[in-house]
């Protein structure tokens, strides 16, 4: 455990090496919120209601997206796994007494922790600027459900991006391709731009069979009370099933990958 704590601390320190880059990362975080906010503001100029959402409700949704994305989708989720497999740097880890996947997960958590700490100030600032109506759940079970859904979403996201980068075992030059495809799907289908329940019912139900809505949309739905009672348990169970599937699939790919890994370039 101690060694992963060291990785955690070193990862935090790494983020501050290039300070201007760090500041720009924070600027980006705020800009992303502003972009989606102004996109919807523009749409609401000529409409008082879109898909049953008022402008205030949509603003609240966009604000919640910022909070959830900060905790779930922040980089560098397994950023260089593909590169390290492709150029043989993975061998450096294999000879060390660390689990490669745990190592990258620790780095992921470090990045998210840092992101969260700074995002708190940004969120407070944006809240004062835009004053979205956010009703905090008072029911302990709902708060717990929200936190569990965030934790499950974080794990799903990490495993999803790690699996996408494992393609490099079979195609060492492919360090980014599948990960890009997954990110494109997440960008739209996770609910970061619009609430997924505005989609036609058939597409919405179909999406629930994919891991994407569990990353952003469902945690927000639990927090904002759009999902209540047994529905929360159902969603959490579905998320947990996805985590189980992803854990199994990641291990399976890792095992298969290890059989073909040739440490090329070393």
């Amino acid at each position, binding site marked *: 455990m101690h060694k992963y704590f060291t990785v955690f601390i070193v990862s935090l320190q790494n983020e501050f090496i290039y300070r201007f*880059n760090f500041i*720009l990362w924070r600027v980006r975080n705020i800009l992303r919120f502003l972009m989606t906010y102004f996109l919807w503001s523009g749409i609401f100029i000529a409409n008082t209601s879109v898909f049953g959402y008022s402008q205030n409700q949509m603003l609240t949704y966009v604000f919640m997206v910022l909070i959830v994305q900060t905790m779930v989708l922040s980089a560098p989720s397994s950023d260089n796994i593909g590169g390290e497999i492709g150029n043989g740097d993975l061998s450096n880890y294999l000879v060390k007494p660390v689990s490669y996947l745990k190592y990258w997960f620790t780095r992921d958590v470090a990045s998210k922790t840092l992101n969260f700490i700074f995002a708190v100030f940004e969120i407070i600032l944006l809240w004062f600027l835009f004053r979205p109506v956010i009703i905090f759940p008072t029911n302990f079970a709902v708060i717990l459900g929200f936190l569990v859904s965030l934790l499950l979403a974080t794990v799903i996201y990490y495993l999803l991006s790690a699996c996408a980068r494992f393609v490099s075992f079979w195609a060492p030059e492919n360090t980014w391709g599948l990960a890009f495809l997954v990110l494109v799907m997440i960008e739209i289908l996770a609910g970061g731009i619009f609430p997924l329940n505005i989609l036609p019912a058939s597409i919405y139900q179909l999406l629930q069979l994919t891991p994407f809505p569990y990353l952003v949309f469902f945690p927000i739905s639990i927090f904002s009370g759009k999902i209540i009672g047994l529905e929360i348990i159902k969603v959490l169970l579905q998320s947990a099933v996805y985590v189980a599937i992803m854990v199994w699939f990641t291990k399976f790919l890792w095992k298969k990958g290890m059989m073909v890994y040739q440490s090329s370039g070393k």
Partner: protein
Amino acid sequence: MKEIKVWLRYTNNSFQQVLASRTSMIFLMTGKIIRVLLFLGFLFFLFKGAGGLGGYTKNQIIFFYLSFNLIDTLAQLFFREVYRFRPLIVSGNFDFVLLKPVNPLIRVLLGGADVMDLMMLFLLTIAVLFFTLGNFSITPLNLLIFILLLFNGFLVAAAFHIFVLGIGIITTSVDHLIIIYRDMTSMLRIPVDLYVEPIRFILTFLLPLGIMITFPSKALLGILSANLIIVSLVFGITSLFLSLKFWSFALKKYSSASS
């Protein structure tokens, strides 16, 4: 002439490099196509749900979105190398670029054209052509102004990328800045007029993404005033001039870190 030859050689090498990794290419191309289609689908639903967007018709909104992709991809095709600039600066390997008897800007700005962007550009050009000819009546004059403003938008994009390179030399930070540019351009997936003031003004004239992306499309549809056409041309040339000045200034600050 020498510069064109060098650029062609860089482009040839870069294309071959991408074509060598076919699995990656298939995934990336699929991702690029899916991204265009998914947002197009979102626009359809949005239009249906909102019952109209800022007075624009559905066809106009789709046309603006396709044009955005066309212009964005054109900039990506030529300026892809900017995304790989930071490692050169951080490692000090930019020294090797400076030592060569070629303008270093050609290498770091234009040296990494991506064949996938060329393929996307081909697909998007066909899509824009079919969609435009099938839904709008275009006059030859509007077409001419469209091409002129497209080129002008290209100059604005070049200026922005040169600024990013200059900042990269001074601060060793490029990655987030270029992604901010990508994020900001993505706001222009819908016409700039749909944004509230002062965002509309900032996007149009301060950044100036509206000039780069929305203006050519509006000109083709014949809904851009003559004044704005002149303003955008002046803006394009001035921004390129200023960016080149900034590049020269930044080069003098290069410290050859790590080398």
